[in-house]
């Protein structure tokens, strides 16, 4: 089997199935009492956690590809990004349905008033156009340059997502801190590459122009 076929018919389906695992665990737990005393809280936290994990995984693809020089990695990036959107949608649905019971008035009041919800909502909204333009056809229609520029919004979504988590915990920020550190490494690696490509010049204009070239 050629490596392209291996990726397409074995690795991708396997990774896709594994990515559905967290959902499986939540659904199985919900029906068997495996989610503890407060299952709805477990679902809220579970879907939120996996959104952040898939966002970080998506952002890890490019640096890992550079490090390992294994280019086929990039073929998993869209899938990870779409799973981030998938879990983000479930997370939002949990809030809208199981927390607010579709009380749009309350939701509309919450979003501007509760900073952590503002951040979470921003993180989600920003992902919508990215998911909508994730097909090969959309990339062709938009043109690579415009598409890449738009998809840089993923950085904003990841930052907003981590801030959302940080702002909601009561006292123990150790877990949001882990996510923040991972995100800092992933974003930092991009700045580093951009800086190097720009020949080490610290001009504020040139590194920015070269970020798109490295994606």
């Amino acid at each position: 089997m050629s490596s392209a076929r291996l990726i397409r018919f074995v690795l991708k389906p396997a990774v896709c199935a594994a990515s559905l695992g967290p959902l499986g665990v939540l659904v199985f737990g919900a029906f068997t009492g495996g989610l503890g005393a407060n299952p709805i809280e477990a679902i809220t936290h579970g879907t939120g956690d996996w959104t952040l994990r898939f966002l970080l995984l998506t952002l890890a693809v490019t640096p890992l590809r550079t490090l390992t020089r294994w280019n086929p990695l990039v073929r998993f990036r869209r899938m990870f990004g779409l799973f981030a959107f998938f879990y983000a949608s479930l997370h939002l649905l949990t809030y809208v349905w199981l927390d607010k019971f579709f009380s749009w008035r309350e939701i509309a009041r919450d979003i501007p008033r509760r900073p952590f919800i503002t951040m979470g909502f921003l993180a989600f909204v920003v992902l919508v156009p990215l998911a909508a333009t994730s097909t090969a056809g959309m990339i062709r229609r938009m043109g690579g340059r415009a598409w890449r520029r738009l998809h840089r919004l993923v950085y904003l979504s990841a930052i907003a997502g981590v801030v959302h988590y940080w702002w909601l915990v009561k006292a123990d920020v150790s877990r949001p801190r882990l996510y923040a550190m991972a995100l800092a490494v992933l974003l930092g690696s991009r700045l580093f590459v951009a800086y190097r490509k720009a020949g080490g010049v610290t001009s504020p204009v040139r590194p920015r122009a070269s970020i798109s070239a490295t994606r």
Partner: protein
Amino acid sequence: MLIRPATEIPSSEITDERVYVRRREFLQACGLAAVGLAASPIAVNAQAAARPRKLENVARGPFGTTEALTPYENVATYNNFYEFGTDKSSPAMTAGSLKTRPWTVKVDGECDRPADYDIDDFIKPHTLEERVYRMRCVEGWSMVIPWVGIPLGDVLKRFEPTSRAKFVEFTTLRDTRQMPGQRSSVLDWPYVEGLRLDEAMHPLTILAVGLYGAVLPNQNGAPLRLVVPWKYGFKGIKSIVRIRFVDRQPVGAWERQSSSEYGFYSNVNPQVDHPRWSQASERRLGEFFKRKTLMFNGYGDQVAGMYAGMDLRKNF
């Protein structure tokens, strides 16, 4: 015409008032017993084995509720007890490291009888009472818990507080070996909580030593914890080693951590939001829909008078 006196009802026929008041629970219990008989005895034994020792001579206390009790398994596995980790499931798994005997409670401050008490001597003079209370956590969930405890007011009177005693301050054990969560600095250890003296003396306020008729599990604050049902759950300080009468308002651990979010009073109040989330509703564990949160957690008839004239938005 001869007027006969009404036939006297023999006292043995009169339903005890306590039973009468709790008739629904009595019927429920009968139903449960029937189900229990049908169920496998092995399952029943396994459940009994998991629970701590039963407490003897527990009287039914006042202020009960007929709301459905939160199952023991949930009360004993869903705990905010940061001394044993910040996950709600971790205290049940790790609190075994806490040694609740021997245990000393130090009583000091503005009182005439300060002393160090052995926990059993501390409890012995009092009758254990079962108190079924709602518990509302500041995070927005709630339970109904059958505590076993002693009225704090009766306990405090024994120590003869002086006229300078205006508040009572409670302190949790500090021992990083028994309480591994204290190695992390999420809170400024040891955990401290306080009540105004009249709140502490209020008949609703108890020191709990048990749960569901059995000894309090470590993760629920053994051997001695405070229960103040009209306040948010974090006021219910666990594993108490010190009770101090003071003339100044104590600063609780959460108030110290974030005074804009957690006030001294922390009375359950659906109108005063936590700065980051609404307190208007709550999720009763085991229920799908949320409930409206009640003022003073439904104990307004008993406690509202203590706060008459106070701005509860300011004194949150």
